[in-house]
């Protein structure tokens, strides 16, 4: 039976999960990263419609990522791990820095949390730094907290390098 956590406990749960996610990605612990998501998760990174307007509907506008279900994320992981991408060979190193973490909503068995991120990629002597905001929706499933939805706003959207799910 899920319950509504006090805000300070929700913040602890949320920050632990979100920092753990970043650490798994940066240390290439792909299976552990996948396990943080619910089976029917949503992973969305919208595009910008203009300099000042962000897309608000993945079914009307282009997205950088709109992946649904853990299997959709697993496809990406398969490709990265199998070394089947000329772009990401050798595998780029990444380092996520996450800050400004705020719990925006606490409900029964769910937490909404907003944070700001910077994802640094170092690949073949080239450094790229992308940044933006995350909105995570976390849900409690069988006593564990999982990511049900992650929305990624990419602020600097003109890309000097292609990106995959671990670079934002």
């Amino acid at each position: 039976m899920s319950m509504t956590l006090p805000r300070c406990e929700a913040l602890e749960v949320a920050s632990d999960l979100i920092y753990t996610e970043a650490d798994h990605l940066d240390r290439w612990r792909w299976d552990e990263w996948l396990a943080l998501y619910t089976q029917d998760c949503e992973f969305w990174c919208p595009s910008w419609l203009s300099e000042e307007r962000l897309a608000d509907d993945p079914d009307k506008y282009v997205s950088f990522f709109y992946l649904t279900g853990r299997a959709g994320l697993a496809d990406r992981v398969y490709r990265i791990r199998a070394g089947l991408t000329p772009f990401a060979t050798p595998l780029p190193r990444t380092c996520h820095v996450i800050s400004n973490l705020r719990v925006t909503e606490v409900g029964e068995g769910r937490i909404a949390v907003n944070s700001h991120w910077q994802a640094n990629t170092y690949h073949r002597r080239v450094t790229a730094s992308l940044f933006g905001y995350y909105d995570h929706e976390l849900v409690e499933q069988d006593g564990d907290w999982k990511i049900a939805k992650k929305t990624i706003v990419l602020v600097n959207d003109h890309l000097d390098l292609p990106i995959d799910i671990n670079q934002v």
Partner: protein
Amino acid sequence: MNRPTELPGATAPLDFSRYLDDRPDEGVFRVSRDIYRDERLFELEMKYIFESNWVFLCHASQIPQPHDFYTTHIGRQPVVVTRNARGELRGFLNTCTHKGSLLCVTQAGNSRFHICTYHGWTFDNDGTCVSIKDEAPAGYSDAFSRDNKNLFPVARIAEYRGWIFGSLSDDVPTLDEHLGDMRLFIDLLVDQAPDGMELVPGNASYSFPGNWKLQIENCLDGYHLNIAHKGFLDITRQRIKRAGDAYKGPDIEAMFGEHLMTGSFGFERGHAMFFSENPAPEFRPLWPERERLKADFGEARADWMLRYGRNLTIFPNVQCTDNAVIGQFRVLRPLATDLTEMQIYCWVPVGESAASRRQRLRQYEDFFNISSTGTPDDVGCYRNCQEGYAARNAKWLHGHSRGMTNMVQGANEYAKALGIHPATSAAGPLNMSDETLFHSSYRAWVKLMTAGQEKELAAP
């Protein structure tokens, strides 16, 4: 950055034909690696190809209304495409005539007037300078008053079925002549949608560390598919397996069957197209409309829309694909010998169903976007090529010889059936992976570079 070392002095005219080893009678066509790595050639390409020739500017769906504007570049030069009060297309260098400031600073917008952010000089969408702030007390001379302060116009601007092109030089053929038989292939795209086609909003732009001609070639290169994109193909097979009985798509192995018929055409002005037989056209979103297409455009054209995937390059800067559920539109802008900027779009029928739009978007994000499981690998290969070109002791490539014995000069049976007149035609099985379709682009390159240089040397 690669620095050139082997070019002659800056003033000596270049013999551009030496960058091709083009001996059709002996079955030889080789391209020199210098054209992808030489900085001086890059400068001349900008002058003689991009800034002296028709280039693609934008799609009509990006500036549908009077007073809409869209900013882009022709070669190195910033331009703005506008619609005036009557909805007519205009094009100008995007620079204020006062101090030279960029005039329109956003990607696109709608504005009756363009007011310079620096001193407020104001221009309308016909490029007319309608206001000079504090003109009366300025103490301007008569000579100043007589001078033309209007925006510098783009010499030619024209549209073919929503594709808007411009040229900084007046000395070009008409756009219809420039596009030639490529118009047929644009028709095959545009005619699919009764209400026309549009670009889905949502910026996807990126740069890659490679020469622009790598992109020109790759769009029509069938040979790299199951090597560079093995990851994508594996994922696709896994998804089908995972879906089990719920999978309702075509047989993936049949889609890449070695017996499938493919072919290509190269055209005199550098354009080229590649086609390949689709063994399962009934899975295309267009399939239910085949009776309408047959009635409106005849059986042959309807067949070409439905039964062949088509990739087009309109030289030198726009490409379109129509080979899966979706179409993709790519506009390229060379920035340096080893740096190219891309604007890419998902291109869809106006007013299609929500389900169809969703399906197209997901496929576009899956393969074409710069965050997809397809395009990043092309970009990785461009980077690897550009880094490989640093091997300056290696001069020639062996990348333009596949299909040599399948190719004919002029029209083959496919071209004759379509009533078109390509410079070269090739046909053969899928794993022929023709490379002769690039010959016309490189021959056009030599021709444009040579003509540009001659014109410049002859100028007083």
